[in-house]
Protein backbone atom coordinates (compact mmCIF):
# COMPACT_ATOMS: atom_id res chain seq x y z
CA UNK A 1 0.00 0.00 0.00
CA UNK A 2 3.09 2.19 -0.09
CA UNK A 3 1.84 3.83 -3.29
CA UNK A 4 -0.97 5.60 -1.45
CA UNK A 5 1.35 8.35 -0.17
CA UNK A 6 4.18 10.33 -1.71
CA UNK A 7 7.65 9.39 -0.37
CA UNK A 8 8.26 12.57 1.63
CA UNK A 9 5.43 11.63 4.03
CA UNK A 10 7.10 10.19 7.12
CA UNK A 11 5.75 9.16 10.52
CA UNK A 12 6.80 12.49 12.02
CA UNK A 13 5.28 14.44 9.13
CA UNK A 14 1.94 12.64 9.59
CA UNK A 15 1.81 13.26 13.33
CA UNK A 16 2.61 16.95 12.96
CA UNK A 17 0.34 17.56 9.97
CA UNK A 18 -2.64 16.04 11.76
CA UNK A 19 -1.83 17.54 15.17
CA UNK A 20 -1.75 20.94 13.45
CA UNK A 21 -5.49 20.63 12.71
CA UNK A 22 -6.04 21.08 16.45
CA UNK A 23 -4.37 24.50 16.42
CA UNK A 24 -5.86 27.83 15.42
CA UNK A 25 -8.22 26.98 12.56
CA UNK A 26 -8.58 30.48 11.10
CA UNK A 27 -11.53 32.60 10.02
CA UNK A 28 -12.97 30.14 7.51
CA UNK A 29 -13.62 27.63 10.25
CA UNK A 30 -15.34 30.12 12.53
CA UNK A 31 -17.47 31.40 9.67
CA UNK A 32 -18.68 27.84 8.98
CA UNK A 33 -19.29 27.19 12.67
CA UNK A 34 -21.29 30.41 13.02
CA UNK A 35 -23.39 29.47 9.99
CA UNK A 36 -24.05 26.03 11.48
CA UNK A 37 -25.08 27.46 14.85
CA UNK A 38 -27.33 30.01 13.11
CA UNK A 39 -29.06 27.24 11.16
CA UNK A 40 -29.50 25.29 14.38
CA UNK A 41 -31.09 28.41 15.89
CA UNK A 42 -33.61 28.52 13.03
CA UNK A 43 -34.41 24.85 13.64
CA UNK A 44 -34.87 25.29 17.38
CA UNK A 45 -37.17 28.28 16.82
CA UNK A 46 -39.34 26.26 14.44
CA UNK A 47 -39.36 23.33 16.86
CA UNK A 48 -40.56 25.61 19.67
CA UNK A 49 -43.43 26.78 17.45
CA UNK A 50 -44.22 23.14 16.67
CA UNK A 51 -44.30 22.33 20.39
CA UNK A 52 -46.57 25.28 21.09
CA UNK A 53 -49.05 24.79 18.23
CA UNK A 54 -48.83 21.05 17.61
CA UNK A 55 -48.25 18.85 14.60
CA UNK A 56 -50.85 20.72 12.53
CA UNK A 57 -48.01 23.13 11.87
CA UNK A 58 -46.17 20.33 10.03
CA UNK A 59 -48.83 20.41 7.32
CA UNK A 60 -50.03 16.84 7.95
CA UNK A 61 -53.34 16.04 6.37
CA UNK A 62 -55.02 12.76 5.58
CA UNK A 63 -53.49 10.46 4.31
CA UNK A 64 -50.04 12.04 4.60
CA UNK A 65 -49.00 11.60 8.22
CA UNK A 66 -45.41 10.64 7.55
CA UNK A 67 -43.66 13.48 5.82
CA UNK A 68 -40.58 15.66 6.07
CA UNK A 69 -39.52 14.48 9.55
CA UNK A 70 -39.50 10.82 8.57
CA UNK A 71 -37.83 11.79 5.28
CA UNK A 72 -35.10 13.53 7.26
CA UNK A 73 -34.84 10.56 9.62
CA UNK A 74 -34.22 8.13 6.76
CA UNK A 75 -31.93 10.63 5.03
CA UNK A 76 -29.69 11.04 8.08
CA UNK A 77 -29.64 7.35 8.92
CA UNK A 78 -28.60 6.78 5.32
CA UNK A 79 -25.80 9.35 5.58
CA UNK A 80 -24.57 7.47 8.62
CA UNK A 81 -23.99 4.27 6.69
CA UNK A 82 -20.90 5.01 4.67
CA UNK A 83 -18.88 5.78 7.79
CA UNK A 84 -19.08 2.25 9.10
CA UNK A 85 -18.77 0.89 5.57
CA UNK A 86 -15.46 2.69 5.15
CA UNK A 87 -14.21 1.96 8.64
CA UNK A 88 -15.39 -1.64 9.05
CA UNK A 89 -16.06 -3.27 5.68
CA UNK A 90 -13.07 -1.74 3.91
CA UNK A 91 -10.99 -2.61 6.99
CA UNK A 92 -11.89 -6.27 6.57
CA UNK A 93 -11.10 -5.98 2.85
CA UNK A 94 -7.69 -4.49 3.78
CA UNK A 95 -8.17 -1.40 1.62
CA UNK A 96 -5.20 0.79 2.43
CA UNK A 97 -6.74 3.97 1.08
CA UNK A 98 -9.44 4.01 3.74
CA UNK A 99 -6.97 5.08 6.44
CA UNK A 100 -6.87 8.73 5.35
CA UNK A 101 -10.64 9.18 5.19
CA UNK A 102 -12.19 6.79 7.67
CA UNK A 103 -12.02 8.97 10.79
CA UNK A 104 -13.99 11.74 9.08
CA UNK A 105 -16.50 9.19 7.82
CA UNK A 106 -16.86 7.61 11.26
CA UNK A 107 -17.38 10.94 13.00
CA UNK A 108 -19.94 11.78 10.33
CA UNK A 109 -21.68 8.49 11.11
CA UNK A 110 -21.98 9.20 14.81
CA UNK A 111 -23.27 12.75 14.32
CA UNK A 112 -25.64 11.70 11.53
CA UNK A 113 -27.21 9.03 13.77
CA UNK A 114 -27.48 11.63 16.53
CA UNK A 115 -29.31 13.89 14.08
CA UNK A 116 -31.49 11.08 12.77
CA UNK A 117 -32.47 10.07 16.29
CA UNK A 118 -34.04 13.49 16.88
CA UNK A 119 -36.58 13.10 14.09
CA UNK A 120 -38.76 10.29 15.45
CA UNK A 121 -38.95 12.37 18.63
CA UNK A 122 -39.94 15.50 16.70
CA UNK A 123 -42.38 13.43 14.67
CA UNK A 124 -44.22 11.92 17.64
CA UNK A 125 -45.45 15.38 18.56
CA UNK A 126 -45.52 14.84 22.29
CA UNK A 127 -41.78 14.65 22.86
CA UNK A 128 -42.12 14.40 26.63
CA UNK A 129 -43.49 10.84 26.18
CA UNK A 130 -40.37 9.65 24.34
CA UNK A 131 -39.75 7.02 27.02
CA UNK A 132 -42.81 5.13 25.79
CA UNK A 133 -40.45 3.71 23.17
CA UNK A 134 -38.48 1.81 25.81
CA UNK A 135 -39.66 -1.80 26.13
CA UNK A 136 -41.47 -1.74 29.44
CA UNK A 137 -45.11 -2.56 30.14
CA UNK A 138 -47.69 0.21 30.15
CA UNK A 139 -50.12 0.74 33.03
CA UNK A 140 -52.20 -2.24 31.86
CA UNK A 141 -49.17 -4.54 31.86
CA UNK A 142 -49.01 -4.68 28.07
CA UNK A 143 -45.54 -5.10 26.57
CA UNK A 144 -44.37 -3.58 23.25
CA UNK A 145 -45.19 -5.43 20.05
CA UNK A 146 -42.01 -7.08 18.82
CA UNK A 147 -43.70 -7.99 15.56
CA UNK A 148 -43.73 -4.31 14.63
CA UNK A 149 -40.91 -3.02 12.42
CA UNK A 150 -40.95 0.23 14.39
CA UNK A 151 -39.69 -1.64 17.47
CA UNK A 152 -37.04 -3.38 15.35
CA UNK A 153 -36.01 0.02 14.12
CA UNK A 154 -35.56 1.32 17.63
CA UNK A 155 -33.28 -1.60 18.50
CA UNK A 156 -31.38 -1.25 15.21
CA UNK A 157 -30.79 2.49 15.53
CA UNK A 158 -29.94 2.21 19.23
CA UNK A 159 -27.41 -0.54 18.53
CA UNK A 160 -25.99 1.30 15.56
CA UNK A 161 -25.50 4.50 17.52
CA UNK A 162 -23.83 2.70 20.41
CA UNK A 163 -21.58 0.53 18.27
CA UNK A 164 -20.51 3.28 15.88
CA UNK A 165 -19.73 5.55 18.85
CA UNK A 166 -17.55 2.98 20.60
CA UNK A 167 -15.88 2.18 17.27
CA UNK A 168 -15.03 5.85 16.79
CA UNK A 169 -13.72 6.18 20.34
CA UNK A 170 -11.64 3.00 20.05
CA UNK A 171 -9.97 4.27 16.90
CA UNK A 172 -9.30 7.62 18.56
CA UNK A 173 -7.40 6.29 21.58
CA UNK A 174 -3.92 5.78 19.99
CA UNK A 175 -4.28 9.09 18.14
CA UNK A 176 -5.24 11.02 21.25
CA UNK A 177 -2.14 9.54 22.87
CA UNK A 178 -0.04 10.83 19.96
CA UNK A 179 -1.57 14.27 20.33
CA UNK A 180 -1.11 14.14 24.11
CA UNK A 181 2.60 13.60 23.68
CA UNK A 182 2.89 16.76 21.58
CA UNK A 183 0.46 19.02 23.46
CA UNK A 184 1.17 21.44 26.28
CA UNK A 185 -0.90 23.09 29.02
CA UNK A 186 -4.55 22.25 29.63
CA UNK A 187 -4.80 20.36 26.36
CA UNK A 188 -2.16 17.92 27.56
CA UNK A 189 -4.25 17.23 30.66
CA UNK A 190 -7.41 16.77 28.61
CA UNK A 191 -5.75 14.37 26.15
CA UNK A 192 -3.94 12.54 28.96
CA UNK A 193 -7.32 11.67 30.48
CA UNK A 194 -9.00 10.80 27.18
CA UNK A 195 -6.06 8.66 26.00
CA UNK A 196 -6.75 6.35 29.00
CA UNK A 197 -3.11 5.45 29.49
CA UNK A 198 -2.31 4.49 25.90
CA UNK A 199 1.42 4.11 25.26
CA UNK A 200 1.55 1.83 22.27
CA UNK A 201 3.10 -1.11 24.10
CA UNK A 202 3.15 -4.53 22.51
CA UNK A 203 0.57 -5.74 25.06
CA UNK A 204 -1.78 -2.87 24.25
CA UNK A 205 -1.48 -3.32 20.50
CA UNK A 206 -1.95 -7.07 20.83
CA UNK A 207 -5.35 -6.73 22.47
CA UNK A 208 -6.32 -3.59 20.59
CA UNK A 209 -5.75 -4.92 17.07
CA UNK A 210 -7.64 -8.13 17.86
CA UNK A 211 -10.50 -6.25 19.44
CA UNK A 212 -10.65 -3.82 16.53
CA UNK A 213 -10.91 -6.73 14.13
CA UNK A 214 -13.86 -8.20 16.03
CA UNK A 215 -15.56 -4.82 16.27
CA UNK A 216 -15.23 -4.48 12.49
CA UNK A 217 -16.59 -7.98 12.05
CA UNK A 218 -19.61 -7.13 14.21
CA UNK A 219 -20.15 -3.72 12.62
CA UNK A 220 -20.16 -5.12 9.07
CA UNK A 221 -23.44 -7.07 9.27
CA UNK A 222 -24.79 -4.29 11.48
CA UNK A 223 -24.39 -1.69 8.70
CA UNK A 224 -26.26 -3.90 6.29
CA UNK A 225 -28.96 -4.71 8.83
CA UNK A 226 -29.72 -1.21 10.06
CA UNK A 227 -30.88 0.29 6.80
CA UNK A 228 -32.64 -2.96 5.93
CA UNK A 229 -34.62 -2.58 9.15
CA UNK A 230 -35.32 1.07 8.30
CA UNK A 231 -36.59 -0.06 4.90
CA UNK A 232 -38.91 -2.59 6.58
CA UNK A 233 -40.61 0.31 8.37
CA UNK A 234 -42.07 0.83 4.90
CA UNK A 235 -41.86 -2.55 3.19
CA UNK A 236 -43.84 -4.29 5.96
CA UNK A 237 -46.79 -1.99 5.27
CA UNK A 238 -49.21 -2.57 2.40
CA UNK A 239 -48.95 0.88 0.81
CA UNK A 240 -48.20 0.56 -2.94
CA UNK A 241 -44.70 1.91 -3.53
CA UNK A 242 -43.60 0.66 -0.11
CA UNK A 243 -44.52 -3.01 -0.11
CA UNK A 244 -41.56 -4.48 -1.99
CA UNK A 245 -38.99 -7.15 -1.18
CA UNK A 246 -36.48 -5.05 -3.09
CA UNK A 247 -36.47 -2.46 -0.33
CA UNK A 248 -33.71 -3.78 1.93
CA UNK A 249 -30.86 -3.95 -0.63
CA UNK A 250 -32.23 -0.85 -2.38
CA UNK A 251 -32.11 1.17 0.85
CA UNK A 252 -28.68 -0.12 1.85
CA UNK A 253 -27.17 0.81 -1.53
CA UNK A 254 -28.89 4.20 -1.39
CA UNK A 255 -27.62 4.78 2.13
CA UNK A 256 -24.02 4.07 1.19
CA UNK A 257 -24.41 6.17 -1.95
CA UNK A 258 -25.60 9.22 -0.04
CA UNK A 259 -23.09 8.59 2.75
CA UNK A 260 -20.11 8.49 0.41
CA UNK A 261 -21.37 11.65 -1.27
CA UNK A 262 -21.56 13.31 2.15
CA UNK A 263 -18.02 12.16 2.98
CA UNK A 264 -16.84 13.92 -0.20
CA UNK A 265 -18.87 17.02 0.68
CA UNK A 266 -17.22 17.12 4.11
CA UNK A 267 -13.67 16.19 3.12
CA UNK A 268 -13.27 18.86 0.45
CA UNK A 269 -13.55 21.85 2.82
CA UNK A 270 -11.70 20.08 5.67
CA UNK A 271 -8.76 19.25 3.44
CA UNK A 272 -8.58 22.87 2.38
CA UNK A 273 -9.13 24.41 5.84
CA UNK A 274 -6.55 22.22 7.58
CA UNK A 275 -4.05 21.93 4.70
CA UNK A 276 -4.17 18.14 4.55
CA UNK A 277 -3.46 17.91 0.81
CA UNK A 278 -0.40 15.70 1.37
CA UNK A 279 -2.38 13.17 3.40
CA UNK A 280 -5.82 13.19 1.75
CA UNK A 281 -4.78 12.99 -1.88
CA UNK A 282 -6.66 12.92 -5.19
CA UNK A 283 -6.18 9.15 -5.08
CA UNK A 284 -8.49 8.99 -2.05
CA UNK A 285 -11.09 11.19 -3.70
CA UNK A 286 -10.99 9.04 -6.80
CA UNK A 287 -11.61 5.89 -4.77
CA UNK A 288 -14.53 7.55 -2.99
CA UNK A 289 -15.89 8.60 -6.38
CA UNK A 290 -15.68 5.02 -7.62
CA UNK A 291 -17.56 3.81 -4.55
CA UNK A 292 -20.14 6.51 -5.24
CA UNK A 293 -20.45 5.43 -8.86
CA UNK A 294 -20.88 1.77 -7.93
CA UNK A 295 -23.61 2.38 -5.35
CA UNK A 296 -25.21 4.99 -7.60
CA UNK A 297 -25.55 2.39 -10.34
CA UNK A 298 -27.13 -0.06 -7.88
CA UNK A 299 -29.60 2.65 -6.91
CA UNK A 300 -30.42 3.40 -10.56
CA UNK A 301 -30.87 -0.30 -11.16
CA UNK A 302 -33.29 -0.41 -8.21
CA UNK A 303 -35.33 2.46 -9.70
CA UNK A 304 -35.62 0.51 -12.94
CA UNK A 305 -36.54 -2.72 -11.14
CA UNK A 306 -39.14 -0.92 -9.05
CA UNK A 307 -40.83 0.58 -12.09
CA UNK A 308 -40.55 -2.62 -14.09
CA UNK A 309 -42.14 -4.65 -11.27
CA UNK A 310 -44.97 -2.14 -10.95
CA UNK A 311 -45.71 -2.55 -14.67
CA UNK A 312 -44.95 -6.26 -15.07
CA UNK A 313 -46.63 -7.29 -11.81
CA UNK A 314 -49.96 -6.20 -13.25
CA UNK A 315 -51.33 -4.91 -9.94
CA UNK A 316 -53.43 -1.87 -10.94
CA UNK A 317 -52.86 -0.12 -7.58
CA UNK A 318 -49.10 -0.55 -7.87
CA UNK A 319 -49.18 0.75 -11.45
CA UNK A 320 -51.33 3.72 -10.42
CA UNK A 321 -48.95 4.56 -7.59
CA UNK A 322 -45.95 4.65 -9.89
CA UNK A 323 -47.82 6.64 -12.53
CA UNK A 324 -48.79 9.14 -9.82
CA UNK A 325 -45.15 9.28 -8.73
CA UNK A 326 -43.83 10.19 -12.16
CA UNK A 327 -46.66 12.28 -13.58
CA UNK A 328 -48.78 13.31 -10.57
CA UNK A 329 -48.60 16.62 -8.71
CA UNK A 330 -45.22 15.64 -7.23
CA UNK A 331 -43.55 15.06 -10.61
CA UNK A 332 -40.90 17.64 -9.71
CA UNK A 333 -39.73 15.61 -6.71
CA UNK A 334 -39.52 12.36 -8.69
CA UNK A 335 -37.63 13.90 -11.55
CA UNK A 336 -35.22 15.70 -9.21
CA UNK A 337 -34.55 12.30 -7.68
CA UNK A 338 -34.10 10.56 -11.04
CA UNK A 339 -31.82 13.22 -12.49
CA UNK A 340 -29.64 13.71 -9.39
CA UNK A 341 -29.29 10.02 -8.50
CA UNK A 342 -29.70 8.23 -11.79
CA UNK A 343 -28.21 10.56 -14.37
CA UNK A 344 -25.56 12.75 -12.71
CA UNK A 345 -23.40 9.94 -11.30
CA UNK A 346 -22.69 8.88 -14.90
CA UNK A 347 -20.33 11.85 -14.93
CA UNK A 348 -18.15 9.82 -12.57
CA UNK A 349 -17.26 7.42 -15.36
CA UNK A 350 -14.93 10.18 -16.54
CA UNK A 351 -11.52 10.17 -14.86
CA UNK A 352 -11.39 13.93 -15.32
CA UNK A 353 -14.43 14.36 -13.06
CA UNK A 354 -13.21 11.77 -10.55
CA UNK A 355 -9.88 13.55 -10.14
CA UNK A 356 -11.25 17.09 -9.96
CA UNK A 357 -12.03 18.10 -6.39
CA UNK A 358 -14.39 20.90 -7.45
CA UNK A 359 -16.37 18.68 -9.84
CA UNK A 360 -16.66 15.96 -7.20
CA UNK A 361 -17.85 18.46 -4.62
CA UNK A 362 -20.60 19.68 -6.98
CA UNK A 363 -21.67 16.13 -7.92
CA UNK A 364 -21.71 15.09 -4.26
CA UNK A 365 -24.04 17.95 -3.36
CA UNK A 366 -26.42 16.99 -6.17
CA UNK A 367 -26.36 13.40 -4.94
CA UNK A 368 -27.25 14.56 -1.43
CA UNK A 369 -30.15 16.60 -2.78
CA UNK A 370 -31.26 13.67 -4.92
CA UNK A 371 -31.13 11.21 -2.05
CA UNK A 372 -33.18 13.52 0.16
CA UNK A 373 -35.78 13.68 -2.58
CA UNK A 374 -35.69 9.90 -2.99
CA UNK A 375 -36.85 9.49 0.59
CA UNK A 376 -39.42 12.27 0.10
CA UNK A 377 -40.77 10.53 -3.00
CA UNK A 378 -40.91 7.12 -1.33
CA UNK A 379 -42.56 8.37 1.85
CA UNK A 380 -44.70 11.37 1.00
CA UNK A 381 -45.63 10.68 -2.61
CA UNK A 382 -46.53 7.04 -1.92
CA UNK A 383 -48.84 8.14 0.89
CA UNK A 384 -50.32 11.08 -1.02
CA UNK A 385 -51.11 8.91 -4.01
CA UNK A 386 -52.41 5.99 -2.00
CA UNK A 387 -54.91 4.45 -4.44
CA UNK A 388 -57.06 2.83 -1.73
CA UNK A 389 -58.18 6.27 -0.63
CA UNK A 390 -58.26 8.29 -3.83
CA UNK A 391 -61.15 10.32 -2.47
CA UNK A 392 -59.05 11.46 0.47
CA UNK A 393 -55.94 12.50 -1.43
CA UNK A 394 -54.89 15.83 -0.10
CA UNK A 395 -52.41 18.21 -1.61
CA UNK A 396 -49.70 18.01 0.96
CA UNK A 397 -46.91 20.54 0.90
CA UNK A 398 -44.08 20.92 3.40
CA UNK A 399 -44.58 24.00 5.60
CA UNK A 400 -42.08 26.60 6.79
CA UNK A 401 -41.80 24.66 10.06
CA UNK A 402 -40.74 21.56 8.14
CA UNK A 403 -38.10 23.38 6.13
CA UNK A 404 -36.89 25.22 9.25
CA UNK A 405 -36.49 22.03 11.27
CA UNK A 406 -34.76 20.35 8.33
CA UNK A 407 -32.34 23.27 8.02
CA UNK A 408 -31.82 23.08 11.79
CA UNK A 409 -30.85 19.42 11.49
CA UNK A 410 -28.10 20.37 9.05
CA UNK A 411 -26.93 23.04 11.49
CA UNK A 412 -26.93 20.53 14.37
CA UNK A 413 -24.96 17.99 12.31
CA UNK A 414 -22.38 20.45 11.00
CA UNK A 415 -21.94 22.04 14.42
CA UNK A 416 -20.96 18.73 16.04
CA UNK A 417 -18.85 17.77 13.10
CA UNK A 418 -16.93 21.05 13.07
CA UNK A 419 -16.36 20.90 16.83
CA UNK A 420 -15.06 17.36 16.46
CA UNK A 421 -12.56 18.02 13.67
CA UNK A 422 -11.18 20.98 15.59
CA UNK A 423 -10.70 19.15 18.89
CA UNK A 424 -9.81 15.60 17.91
CA UNK A 425 -7.59 14.21 15.14
CA UNK A 426 -9.83 14.26 12.04
CA UNK A 427 -7.54 11.82 10.26
CA UNK A 428 -6.29 8.67 11.89
CA UNK A 429 -2.64 9.22 12.83
CA UNK A 430 -1.70 5.62 13.61
CA UNK A 431 -3.53 4.10 10.64
CA UNK A 432 -2.11 6.53 8.10
CA UNK A 433 1.32 5.54 9.41
CA UNK A 434 0.38 1.91 9.08
CA UNK A 435 0.19 2.14 5.28
CA UNK A 436 3.48 4.07 5.07
CA UNK A 437 6.73 2.15 4.61
CA UNK A 438 8.27 1.69 8.06
CA UNK A 439 11.63 3.42 8.58
CA UNK A 440 14.44 0.89 8.08
CA UNK A 441 18.20 1.21 8.28
CA UNK A 442 18.68 -0.25 4.84
CA UNK A 443 16.80 2.45 2.94
CA UNK A 444 16.55 5.74 4.77
CA UNK A 445 13.26 7.60 4.36
CA UNK A 446 13.90 11.21 3.38
CA UNK A 447 12.36 13.75 5.75
Amino acid at each position, binding site marked *: MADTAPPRV*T*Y*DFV*TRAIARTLGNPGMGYFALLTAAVALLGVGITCLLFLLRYGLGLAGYSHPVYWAVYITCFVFWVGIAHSGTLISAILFLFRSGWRTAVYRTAEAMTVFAVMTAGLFPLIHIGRQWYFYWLI*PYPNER*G*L*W*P*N*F*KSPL*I*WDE*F*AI*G*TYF*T*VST*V*FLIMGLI*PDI*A*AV*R*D*LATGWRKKLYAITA*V*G*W*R*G*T*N*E*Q*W*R*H*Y*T*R*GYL*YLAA*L*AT*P*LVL*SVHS*VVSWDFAMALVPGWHATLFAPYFVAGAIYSGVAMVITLLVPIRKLFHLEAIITIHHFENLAKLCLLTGLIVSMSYCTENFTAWFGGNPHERAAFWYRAFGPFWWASWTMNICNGLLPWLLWSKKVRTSVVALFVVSIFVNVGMWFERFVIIVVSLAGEPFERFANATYNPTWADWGIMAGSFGWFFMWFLLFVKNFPAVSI*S*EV*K*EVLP*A*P*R*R*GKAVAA
Partner: protein
Amino acid sequence: MKLVNPLTAIFHPPPTPGVLGVFGHLDAVLEAIRQLRKGGHSDFTVYSPVPRHELEDALDQPVSPVRMFTLIGGIAGCAIGAWLTLYMSYDWPIVLGGKPIGSIPPYVVIMFEMTVLFGALSTILGIAFNALFAARRLGTVAYDARFTNDKFGIFVPSESARQSQVESLLRGAGAEEVRRA
Protein backbone atom coordinates in the same frame (compact mmCIF):
# COMPACT_ATOMS: atom_id res chain seq x y z
CA MET B 1 4.94 7.93 61.57
CA LYS B 2 3.99 9.05 58.07
CA LEU B 3 0.57 8.00 56.85
CA VAL B 4 0.55 6.44 53.39
CA ASN B 5 -2.42 6.75 51.10
CA PRO B 6 -3.24 3.12 50.19
CA LEU B 7 -4.42 4.22 46.73
CA THR B 8 -0.94 5.54 45.93
CA ALA B 9 0.33 1.98 45.69
CA ILE B 10 -2.33 1.25 43.06
CA PHE B 11 -2.33 4.46 41.03
CA HIS B 12 1.26 5.61 41.49
CA PRO B 13 3.36 2.49 41.95
CA PRO B 14 7.15 2.91 42.21
CA PRO B 15 9.00 2.79 38.87
CA THR B 16 10.44 -0.50 37.68
CA PRO B 17 14.26 -0.45 37.36
CA GLY B 18 15.54 -1.24 33.88
CA VAL B 19 16.92 0.04 30.60
CA LEU B 20 15.03 1.97 27.92
CA GLY B 21 16.25 1.96 24.32
CA VAL B 22 14.92 4.37 21.69
CA PHE B 23 15.03 3.14 18.08
CA GLY B 24 14.47 5.02 14.84
CA HIS B 25 14.25 1.96 12.60
CA LEU B 26 11.98 -1.03 12.58
CA ASP B 27 14.66 -3.54 11.60
CA ALA B 28 16.83 -2.40 14.52
CA VAL B 29 13.96 -3.09 16.94
CA LEU B 30 13.44 -6.52 15.43
CA GLU B 31 17.13 -7.28 15.79
CA ALA B 32 17.05 -6.17 19.45
CA ILE B 33 13.99 -8.33 20.14
CA ARG B 34 15.70 -11.35 18.61
CA GLN B 35 18.83 -10.85 20.70
CA LEU B 36 16.87 -10.19 23.91
CA ARG B 37 14.86 -13.36 23.47
CA LYS B 38 18.02 -15.31 22.74
CA GLY B 39 19.54 -13.86 25.91
CA GLY B 40 16.65 -15.19 27.97
CA HIS B 41 14.70 -11.94 28.45
CA SER B 42 10.95 -12.39 28.19
CA ASP B 43 9.19 -9.63 30.10
CA PHE B 44 10.43 -6.61 28.15
CA THR B 45 8.01 -4.02 26.73
CA VAL B 46 8.10 -2.92 23.10
CA TYR B 47 6.70 0.50 22.18
CA SER B 48 5.54 1.25 18.65
CA PRO B 49 3.58 4.13 17.08
CA VAL B 50 1.86 1.65 14.75
CA PRO B 51 0.91 -1.99 15.01
CA ARG B 52 3.32 -3.98 12.78
CA HIS B 53 3.06 -7.63 11.89
CA GLU B 54 6.87 -7.87 11.95
CA LEU B 55 6.81 -6.96 15.66
CA GLU B 56 4.05 -9.46 16.35
CA ASP B 57 6.01 -12.20 14.60
CA ALA B 58 9.25 -11.34 16.39
CA LEU B 59 7.55 -11.31 19.79
CA ASP B 60 5.56 -14.47 19.06
CA GLN B 61 2.85 -13.77 21.65
CA PRO B 62 -0.29 -15.87 22.12
CA VAL B 63 -3.53 -14.68 20.48
CA SER B 64 -5.31 -12.05 22.57
CA PRO B 65 -8.06 -13.34 24.88
CA VAL B 66 -10.32 -10.51 23.66
CA ARG B 67 -11.96 -13.00 21.31
CA MET B 68 -13.48 -14.86 24.25
CA PHE B 69 -15.07 -11.62 25.43
CA THR B 70 -16.58 -11.10 21.97
CA LEU B 71 -17.91 -14.63 21.77
CA ILE B 72 -19.44 -14.68 25.25
CA GLY B 73 -20.91 -11.19 24.79
CA GLY B 74 -22.43 -12.14 21.45
CA ILE B 75 -24.01 -15.34 22.73
CA ALA B 76 -25.30 -13.54 25.83
CA GLY B 77 -26.79 -10.79 23.64
CA CYS B 78 -28.54 -13.29 21.42
CA ALA B 79 -29.96 -15.09 24.47
CA ILE B 80 -31.12 -11.81 26.01
CA GLY B 81 -32.81 -10.87 22.72
CA ALA B 82 -34.62 -14.22 22.61
CA TRP B 83 -35.65 -13.98 26.26
CA LEU B 84 -36.80 -10.36 25.90
CA THR B 85 -39.06 -11.00 22.94
CA LEU B 86 -40.44 -14.39 24.00
CA TYR B 87 -40.97 -13.54 27.67
CA MET B 88 -42.69 -10.26 26.85
CA SER B 89 -44.94 -11.96 24.29
CA TYR B 90 -46.02 -14.79 26.61
CA ASP B 91 -46.31 -12.57 29.70
CA TRP B 92 -49.45 -11.01 28.19
CA PRO B 93 -50.39 -13.25 25.28
CA ILE B 94 -52.21 -11.27 22.66
CA VAL B 95 -52.71 -12.34 19.06
CA LEU B 96 -51.37 -9.76 16.60
CA GLY B 97 -51.90 -10.06 12.86
CA GLY B 98 -53.10 -13.64 13.25
CA LYS B 99 -49.58 -14.79 13.98
CA PRO B 100 -48.41 -17.15 16.76
CA ILE B 101 -47.76 -15.47 20.13
CA GLY B 102 -44.07 -16.30 19.98
CA SER B 103 -43.14 -15.74 16.31
CA ILE B 104 -39.47 -16.44 15.81
CA PRO B 105 -38.90 -14.75 12.38
CA PRO B 106 -39.62 -11.18 13.50
CA TYR B 107 -37.80 -11.78 16.78
CA VAL B 108 -34.63 -12.74 14.90
CA VAL B 109 -34.20 -9.04 14.10
CA ILE B 110 -34.12 -8.16 17.82
CA MET B 111 -31.90 -11.15 18.61
CA PHE B 112 -29.45 -10.12 15.90
CA GLU B 113 -29.27 -6.50 17.07
CA MET B 114 -28.74 -7.59 20.67
CA THR B 115 -25.99 -10.01 19.57
CA VAL B 116 -24.12 -7.17 17.89
CA LEU B 117 -24.73 -4.73 20.74
CA PHE B 118 -23.58 -7.04 23.53
CA GLY B 119 -20.78 -8.50 21.41
CA ALA B 120 -19.39 -5.04 20.66
CA LEU B 121 -19.71 -3.79 24.22
CA SER B 122 -18.03 -6.83 25.71
CA THR B 123 -15.25 -6.56 23.09
CA ILE B 124 -14.65 -3.02 24.33
CA LEU B 125 -14.62 -4.31 27.91
CA GLY B 126 -12.20 -7.03 26.86
CA ILE B 127 -9.81 -4.53 25.30
CA ALA B 128 -10.09 -2.18 28.25
CA PHE B 129 -9.60 -4.94 30.77
CA ASN B 130 -6.66 -6.58 28.99
CA ALA B 131 -4.86 -3.66 27.40
CA LEU B 132 -5.52 -0.70 29.61
CA PHE B 133 -6.33 -1.74 33.16
CA ALA B 134 -4.85 -5.18 33.67
CA ALA B 135 -1.62 -4.66 31.72
CA ARG B 136 1.32 -5.67 33.84
CA ARG B 137 3.28 -2.82 35.43
CA LEU B 138 1.28 -0.20 33.54
CA GLY B 139 2.70 3.22 34.26
CA THR B 140 5.73 1.93 36.09
CA VAL B 141 7.98 1.28 33.12
CA ALA B 142 9.95 4.07 31.48
CA TYR B 143 8.32 5.78 28.53
CA ASP B 144 9.27 8.43 25.99
CA ALA B 145 6.84 10.83 24.33
CA ARG B 146 8.36 10.09 20.91
CA PHE B 147 6.99 6.53 20.99
CA THR B 148 3.60 7.69 19.73
CA ASN B 149 5.22 9.76 16.99
CA ASP B 150 8.06 8.21 15.01
CA LYS B 151 10.26 6.19 17.38
CA PHE B 152 10.14 2.61 18.52
CA GLY B 153 11.26 1.64 22.00
CA ILE B 154 12.18 -1.30 24.15
CA PHE B 155 12.14 -1.31 27.93
CA VAL B 156 14.00 -4.18 29.56
CA PRO B 157 13.41 -4.55 33.31
CA SER B 158 16.69 -5.45 34.95
CA GLU B 159 18.48 -4.87 38.25
CA SER B 160 21.47 -2.53 38.20
CA ALA B 161 24.02 -5.36 38.06
CA ARG B 162 22.85 -6.47 34.62
CA GLN B 163 21.97 -3.06 33.22
CA SER B 164 25.27 -2.42 31.45
CA GLN B 165 24.98 -5.76 29.66
CA VAL B 166 21.46 -4.91 28.44
CA GLU B 167 22.63 -1.45 27.48
CA SER B 168 25.35 -2.77 25.21
CA LEU B 169 22.92 -5.31 23.71
CA LEU B 170 20.44 -2.56 22.76
CA ARG B 171 23.19 -0.32 21.42
CA GLY B 172 24.63 -3.18 19.42
CA ALA B 173 21.23 -3.83 17.84
CA GLY B 174 21.04 -0.23 16.68
CA ALA B 175 19.39 1.85 19.43
CA GLU B 176 19.76 5.59 18.86
CA GLU B 177 19.56 6.32 22.55
CA VAL B 178 19.80 4.16 25.67
CA ARG B 179 19.11 5.26 29.21
CA ARG B 180 18.68 3.67 32.63
CA ALA B 181 15.47 4.04 34.55
